[in-house]
């Protein structure tokens, strides 16, 4: 478990370093996710080393967003002034994005089958 956390944090650190050094628009933790996948595929990291820590974190993934959401209270004034564009754009676009993404995937899956395999 401790080893797993250490590996996840080390990969995040590596990702942050790469992101900073190369001035990439991609944040370090997303690069870290890619690095973890790469290291697992290459066999440099074994799945048994990280799965316990990863599952613990992922089973509480939603919790870590709570403080960012509470931050909305600072902007109640702005939201009250511009509530119409904020509320409509936020909620309508989520549904449109789900519909477009889902339909595109289903359509391609149905037509091309398994990508020519």
């Amino acid at each position, binding site marked *: 478990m401790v080893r797993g956390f250490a590996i996840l944090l080390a990969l995040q650190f590596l990702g942050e370093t790469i992101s900073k050094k190369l001035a990439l628009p991609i944040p370090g933790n997303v690069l870290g996710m890619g690095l973890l996948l790469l290291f697992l595929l290459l066999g440099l990291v074994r799945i048994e080393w990280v799965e316990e820590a990863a599952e613990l974190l*992922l089973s509480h993934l939603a919790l870590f967003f709570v403080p960012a959401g509470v931050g909305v209270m600072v902007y109640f004034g702005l939201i009250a002034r511009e509530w119409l564009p904020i509320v409509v754009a936020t909620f309508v676009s989520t549904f449109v994005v*789900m519909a477009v993404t889902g339909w595109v995937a289903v359509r391609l899956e149905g037509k091309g089958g*398994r990508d020519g395999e």
Partner: protein
Amino acid sequence: MANELLQTPLFGVGLTLAVYALAQKLYLRTGKILLNPVAISIAAIILLLILCGIPYEVYAQGGRYVLFLLGPSVVALGVPLYRRRQEILARRAPILIGIFAGALTSIVVASGLAWLLGGSREVVLSLAPKSVTTPIAISIVEKIGGIAPLTAALVVLTGCQGAICGPEFCRWIGIRDPAAIGLAVGTASHGIGTARMLEIDRLGGAVAGLAIGLNGLVTAFLLPLLFYSFR
């Protein structure tokens, strides 16, 4: 004495965990998806802080320790990706094109609607990366000139919306394939939507996790380009 304790991270961390634990219990007991633990926790904490007259900054001293764990959690999404690699690889074309379509749709529809409805420049910019996971959305919005904390909050609201009714909405409009639902929910509502998908379907959850990263990547590249060319 009590005021001194409020100034330590203990308060923010403790409050977040306690409220979330209660919210989760409520969610599991009632089984009502409307009672999404994140949405309920955020509402309850805001209400508590306002009623007790505690400023957000005091809460945030502990809150940022909870937020810190989001970093290694995003890295940990590599694990379900690795486990489901064969199924994902077999569907690479629909997954990649679907995410790209979703990322573009999100930018255009969210900021376009806000602009049409008379939103200020700052609000329009803050809404543009709203489907992207918090850490990526914040770094994007700082680059294009929106209000980062507002974006963070809208990202979380979007996530709650996707978690509460994403899978149901997808089935309602005729999308039944679990991988496609995971793709739609993950692309539109990032980590919070993914958390719900992980509860429902393993493949759908892994695909949603992939969508968080890829939507983040695509938006991070696309959005600065789009906004710089409009200036």
